[in-house]
């Protein structure tokens, strides 16, 4: 027997479901779908309300969106991809190395991103572009946009 063929009938027998099990499984899947749909509609509602209320770029909004994204991602991995049904050890083999790498990436983003946005490390940005963003943010009633953009211009002049 070749080690590289994927014809393993016995594994499917392990998951060979009957009609009753199927009914239950389908109900779970549709529930997951409805939850994900509600989350997405909620995100879109908040997202389209944000400019009018001056929420754009607020920290609580970022935290909220990222949390909801992680909830959706977990639902996909656990129920749609059935990782929740796999052997515990296999679950961790898949998740732990990846999460470790992502934590490292987030650390690098925060660390280096903060360093590179120090005034002395600013890169020159087209002044017309800076002005466009200042106008857009002022027009949309974006809280604090003007002073931020003015800071960018200052940074640009530094070079």
């Amino acid at each position, binding site marked *: 027997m070749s080690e590289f063929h994927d014809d393993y009938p016995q594994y499917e027998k392990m998951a060979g479901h009957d009609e009753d099990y199927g009914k239950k499984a389908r109900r779970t899947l549709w529930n997951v779908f409805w939850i994900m749909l509600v989350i997405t509609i909620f995100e879109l509602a908040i997202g389209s309300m944000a400019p009018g209320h001056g929420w754009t770029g607020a920290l609580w909004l970022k935290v909220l969106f990222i949390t909801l994204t992680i909830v959706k991602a977990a639902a996909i991995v656990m129920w749609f991809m059935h990782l929740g049904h*796999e052997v515990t050890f296999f679950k961790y083999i898949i998740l732990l190395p990846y999460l470790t790498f992502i934590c490292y990436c987030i650390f690098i983003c925060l660390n280096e991103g903060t360093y590179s946005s120090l005034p002395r490390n600013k890169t020159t940005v087209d002044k017309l572009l800076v002005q466009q963003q200042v106008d857009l943010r002022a027009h949309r009633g974006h809280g604090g946009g003007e002073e931020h953009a003015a800071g960018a211009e200052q940074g640009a002049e530094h070079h």
Partner: protein
Amino acid sequence: MSHSAEIDQKEAWSGGQSPFKVSYGKMFMWFFLISDALTFGGLLSSYGFIRHKYSEVWPHAENVFTHFPFIHQHVPLAYVGLMTFILIMSSVTMVLAVEAGQRMNKRGVLIWMFWTIIGGLMFVGSQAWEWYHFIVGTDHGALRHVWDPAVGHYVEKTIYGANMVVNEYGVPQFANYFFFITGFHGTHVFSGVVINFVIFLNALFGTYERRGHYEMVEKVGLYWHFVDLVWVFVFTFFYLL
């Protein structure tokens, strides 16, 4: 679900049993998805870094993605909301195909795979439409300093739409990352549609019925859900935040 007694020793891995109670193919699909997820993780991290660096001049999504078919108004987020709905929906039809396969229900597999393929094509089409409007841009455009080789210095010029060098929305990196990450994701969706179609044909011709199981549907299902998973993050980081 695990009746390990049913495993025929001759059919198991060379070690005499299946590690972690998953088949060879499924396990390596997971390993492939991890490597693919690392690529996307790297791309999104570098996007986050550049966006953080240029946060003062990074355009807001609601000022960029405002088009919707047949509506001549600014409707921010609506179109990408529709795209997200299509992709989540096709993920559900995929998992229902997997579920039908586990009950050896050929008709169910075919129906749900069909809708998954339709959903995938709709998503790819929507993305093409989105790219078209991103590249063509608005009627008013925006003023930029661009290098003119004829005069040898920067001149003011109205820019419409986006390319890899300059765009009317914000810093050039904004368009670069948009093209690269959504393009890379779109390539995944397209290849997913092709693979789904091949599996659909196999199921149609009874290959899996003869084989005695529909595990291939489960494996391509993993890939398809992964594409949906990546979109969830792309949606948040490009359109919501």
